């Protein structure tokens, strides 16, 4: 009745820290990109902006650029193709549907407003208080969550119309 049995071991199967956090960790960029896409859907631009490409300018260095480029390969703004532009200086700003300013470029807000005064451009910023200072949309964090402020008056000055669906999602500021 002798036991001649080789006992295997599953201890070897336990690979220490076998799993890794999901690649990269910039979840916030994707959320912002989805919001940006929805701005193109739920804001109405004047007639002369509804042909040609739907242009989104990214002012400053941001991973949002790459995310929006990826989005632009799959999605359209109505019948318009998306065109995502990198903007390195205020002087490069021309006719855009949307301009996103990185937090680092916030101090340039006045210049951006001046540069876009003749355009129906939605200015999107990402710094506390900027919606009150002239931008149409301002990304903010509330309770650790990505939210956005909407200044309807700033948007309407640009002859843009905001859908009530978008307003319902936003934090309205004046």
């Amino acid at each position, binding site marked *: *009745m002798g036991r001649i049995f080789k006992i295997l071991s*599953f201890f070897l199967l336990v690979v220490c820290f076998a*799993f*890794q956090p999901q690649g990269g960790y910039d979840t916030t960029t994707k*959320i912002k*990109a989805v*919001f940006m896409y929805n701005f193109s859907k739920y804001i109405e631009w004047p007639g002369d902006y509804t042909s040609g490409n739907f242009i989104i300018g990214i002012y400053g260095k941001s991973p949002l650029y790459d995310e929006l480029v990826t989005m632009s390969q799959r999605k359209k703004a109505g019948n318009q193709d998306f065109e995502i532009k990198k903007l390195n200086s205020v002087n490069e700003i021309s006719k855009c549907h949307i301009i996103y300013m990185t937090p680092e470029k916030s101090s340039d807000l006045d210049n951006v407003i001046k540069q876009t005064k003749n355009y129906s451009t939605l200015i999107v910023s990402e710094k506390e208080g900027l919606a009150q200072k002239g931008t149409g949309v301002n990304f903010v*964090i509330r309770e*650790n969550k990505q939210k956005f402020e909407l200044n309807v008056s700033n948007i309407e000055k640009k002859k843009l119309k905001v859908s009530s669906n978008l307003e319902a999602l936003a934090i309205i500021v004046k």
Partner: protein
Amino acid sequence: MFRLVNILFLSLLFPAILFGQGNRVDLALKLYQEGQVDKAKAAFDDLSQDNEYKGNPTVWFWKGYIEKELYKQNEKDLYASPLRLASVKSLYTSMELDIKNEHKTDAINTLNYLSSTLYNDVVRLITPSNSTGLIDDKSIEQSIENFDIYLDIKKNIDPEGDYKAQITQFNIVIGQNFMKKYEAGNYENQDYMNQAILRFQNVLDADSNHVKANYNMALIYYNKSVYMINNMDYDRPIEALNEIIDETNELFKKALPYMIRAYKLEPKRKETLKGLAGIYWSLNDKEKSELYFKQYQEIDNLEKQEEKD
């Protein structure tokens, strides 16, 4: 040779066998000694049902022993072997009835052998056999069943034994398997997630400072949330956007305490630092995220430098 040893062993225990006399137990044993194992099994099965013999530990011991022999002959490659299970049950009954400890040592030896086969089957069942590294549901289920029987035998033989380490390791392996399957199935099968959580929670219930269990627990919630965000459909109705943000935020919050604990237990581990940086980033706490990411980079650079040196 083995047969000869068996005959000698049996003869020592039951001299009546050699002389062809005795009761029905002896006759049943004689069948076994003559190599008529199936008939011997049938005879002991009958005896175990007979009112006169069913309280006899010798009947149950030999029933279990013969079932074990038949398992070896016929069902060795069967993970869910009915004969092995029957043998275990018979030997348990024998031990319960065996007040004089006549068969105790032999019953324990036989049970030890059976427990080894169960353990080895568990290992085989949870060793990935294909390139995907994924184990099928049936194998996982069978491994859990076999491990439970293995453990039960061990506890029966030695109730005072310490099996915590084995249980922990098993739960971690099974939990990680469910986790892998959950990830491979694009986080859709909630049952896999629940099973993984259950296994890691079992480990944490026994030892809340288990690093791997804490880390894996954090990762289940974190990875699911990241997956949900990365795969968020741009055309998802706008009204549902805040819902997904709330849902993913909750998952990040659930992941955080486990990752913090794993970090406190092993502050220099790169994976944990990366995980913490990721969770805080996703919770929009850039300051803390950068703090942990910096620590991660420092260790990473140090390791790279050491490799160069």
